[in-house]
């Protein structure tokens, strides 16, 4: 089925709204979305930071790295990174059931179960990593 708009129908011009530069400030949900996406910048930073650490370990310059890490601005940045990565983790794991709908014999596994599993996995992995890093010290 196609729409018929016979040629020669002069039409008063419809109004097209100009691009709204501040679209993300119009609704809370959009602001939260943009914050969620911007966590990626700090995810990238966190990776960079860990690469610096790995470099220091490889070069045997961990002392210098520790000194750098203790600078107040660096600590502030990492506190921000912690908040961002945690926010990323919570939002990402909570949204996962949208992409992975699990059906068992026609019964749809409710979102909260999948989310609960994800968060349990997060806790377990975090605990394991912390144990590996801290066990001898």
């Amino acid at each position, binding site marked *: 089925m196609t729409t018929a708009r016979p040629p020669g129908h002069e039409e008063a011009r*419809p109004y097209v709204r100009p691009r709204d530069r501040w679209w993300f400030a119009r609704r809370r*949900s959009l602001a939260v*979305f943009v914050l969620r*996406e911007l966590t990626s910048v700090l995810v990238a930073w966190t990776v960079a930071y860990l690469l610096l650490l790995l470099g220091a370990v490889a070069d045997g310059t961990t002392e210098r790295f520790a000194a750098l890490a203790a600078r107040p601005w660096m600590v502030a940045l990492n506190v921000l990174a912690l908040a961002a990565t945690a926010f990323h983790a919570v939002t990402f794991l909570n*949204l996962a059931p*949208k992409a992975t709908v699990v059906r068992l014999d*026609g019964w749809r596994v409710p979102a909260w179960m999948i989310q609960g599993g994800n968060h349990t996995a997060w806790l377990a992995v975090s605990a394991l990593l912390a144990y590996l890093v801290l066990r001898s010290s």
Partner: protein
Amino acid sequence: MAAETIRLDVARYRPEEDAEPVLQSYEVPLRPDWAVLDGLAHIKDHLDGTLSFRWSCRMGICGSCGMDVDGEPRLTCGTFLAEYGAGPVRIEPLKGFPVIRDLVVDIDGFLAKLSSVRPWLVREGEEPPLTAEYAQTPAQLDAYKQYSMCINCMLCYSACPVYVLDPDFLGPAAIALAQRYNLDSRDMDDRFDVLNLEEAVWGCTFVGDCTRVCPKHVDPAEAIQRYKVTAALRSVLPWSGR
């Protein structure tokens, strides 16, 4: 008892005379069971016959009366004036669509998108005689039912920043409709060619507002993310097409 009223600030756009929409204020009675649509009908019937807007069923099923009410896309028949306290309430055409007149927007682009996803049952071979139905269990029905509830009100498009910034984006309702058929046990297509595109599912950044504003709980955001998984798996495992 003095009759209470509420002010409605209504966007007016008359293409013959206005360069852009302007707000016009009307005082309408504030009654507990009046929806925004009743307020607009009161204006049209008793205050200003020149106001143009679409409406029909006033029971939330025809999908005509979606508008932007105080910055949120809503069905005006199901949005009550009492929600807005003393007012005023700002009523504008759905954002993201060209405005034809007042509160009336151009939806031809949306319809073209719906049509593009082959929203019909795709079968191979001859249609069997009209003596028996295709069998479908309640569980198989359940697998797509939610995506079949879309009333084409377009609130999801209006709420979607990706669509508003890029009108070529296929958008929530069209993809949900494609999934409605993809997940139907009677359908034999997966609409990979029209969905596995940058302007289709890959354009979505999963804002999730489409789902938030959907008056029928279709959850288009879910439909899109699920198709991303389907399309990604099909891309990695080329033999996994249905």
